[in-house]
């Protein structure tokens, strides 16, 4: 099995000769990786429309509170750093798997999951504070355009992070049980990494455009 370790390297030209591998398609590429890139392409449009909707309604709320009233730069900066660091640990995890060091990979994967879980935790705290103390409502008669679009956008992002955390945990269990071994199967870790990094870049966009630009106004 592990004889085909190279199929998951990013120097993919080496992988082309392996069309015979059952998991690879007629192009000689791992199906799962191809599918993930196609999925992430569609996710671009998904988050593009959520962020777009937020901006088209920006400044059109009939009633408060407004972004400036609720955003606190401190808590958001911390979660931004957590997610950024989780991208580093994720990359290191993928790298360790490629180096055929599953236990090292597992450590980084667990670290990534922990950072991601902290991010989600901060978001829960943030939403709770916005909702109960700042009276930013998601839906119903007291909702504002800002509230609805903000919660939809960041809520979907948080959901993605949560799904990622669950995925990371499942993978670390599989590695522990030796159900996932380096070599050909390491592409599964690589693909999970792609998803995780994508979730990070969505946050890079939200953090800059939704939060930081608000503070410049």
């Amino acid at each position, binding site marked *: 099995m592990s004889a085909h370790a190279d199929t998951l390297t990013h120097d993919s030209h080496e992988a082309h000769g392996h069309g015979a591998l059952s998991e690879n398609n007629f192009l000689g*590429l791992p199906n799962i990786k191809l599918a993930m890139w196609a999925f992430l392409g569609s996710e*671009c449009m998904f988050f593009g*429309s959520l962020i777009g909707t937020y901006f088209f309604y920006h400044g059109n709320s009939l009633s408060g509170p407004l972004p400036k009233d609720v955003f606190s730069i401190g808590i958001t900066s911390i979660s931004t*750093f957590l997610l950024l660091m989780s991208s580093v640990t994720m990359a290191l995890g993928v790298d360790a798997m490629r180096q055929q060091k599953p236990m090292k990979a597992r450590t980084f994967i667990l670290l990534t999951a922990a950072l991601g879980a902290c991010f989600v935790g901060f978001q829960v705290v943030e939403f709770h504070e916005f909702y109960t103390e700042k009276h930013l409502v998601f839906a119903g008669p007291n909702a504002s355009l800002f509230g609805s679009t903000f919660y939809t956008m960041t809520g979907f992002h948080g959901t993605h992070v949560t799904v990622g955390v669950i995925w990371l945990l499942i993978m670390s269990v599989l590695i522990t049980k030796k159900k996932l071994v380096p070599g050909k199967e390491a592409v599964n870790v690589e693909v999970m990494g792609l998803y995780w990094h994508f979730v990070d870049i969505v946050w890079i966009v939200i953090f800059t455009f939704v939060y930081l630009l608000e503070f410049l106004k």
Partner: protein
Amino acid sequence: MSHGHDSHELPHSHQKQYIILGVVLSIVTFIELGIPLIKGVPELWTAAKEVWAPLLVVLSIFKFGAVVGDFMHLRTDLTLYKILFVSPLFLAMFSFFAIGSLSIVHFHPFGKGYAITAQDLADGYVPPATGATAEPPLADDKFEAAFADAQKTSFAKGKETFTASCASCHRADGGGMPGLGVNLSDDCYKHGGKIAALYTTIAKGVSGTAMPAWQNSMDSEKMRQVAYYVRSLKGTNVAGGKECEGPKE
């Protein structure tokens, strides 16, 4: 073309690059966080007023590119993956701007929308006046406080105006009264339910009916406030409201 898995065949490790990139991205994020703080130093802030926001955008594009290009290896990976990812990304950006240009027409009935920003007023923006004379823009130093105050109070003022001037015919909750005002809490509008249409109806009234032209007795700001309040009643469908009149919106 069969490869073994001897250690010398292992792909080259990128560990060091990842860590360096992580440090670089952290530094960039620190710079980003510092930019809003520049506002506290007015000399520096005004020295390059036009630079700060674009700088933030450039820095975030850099971070985006670094994560996609290096953490996700798209820079060195197959063209097929690049196409799969980058083309929807451009499509998303295209529709973003396309809808954005539409939204100026639909969501900004008064040119600038309801929540006029501090910048707009500082730039001398004046809500379009219908008859009433518009006030000159406030001085910069008074402006922030006045703006925050306006945000808080204008919706409440709209409600106040409604209770004082409109409830007698439309009922306090907008449900309407038989023989008098129509139901404003349903989805039906004889004269249009978009904010601009509501404003026009309120300003010009409906001749031949009991609905007065309020531009004779209210200034544009007051009519704007009450128009937004009426808009907020849409779909609340209060109990005991009059039956639907006019096309559904």
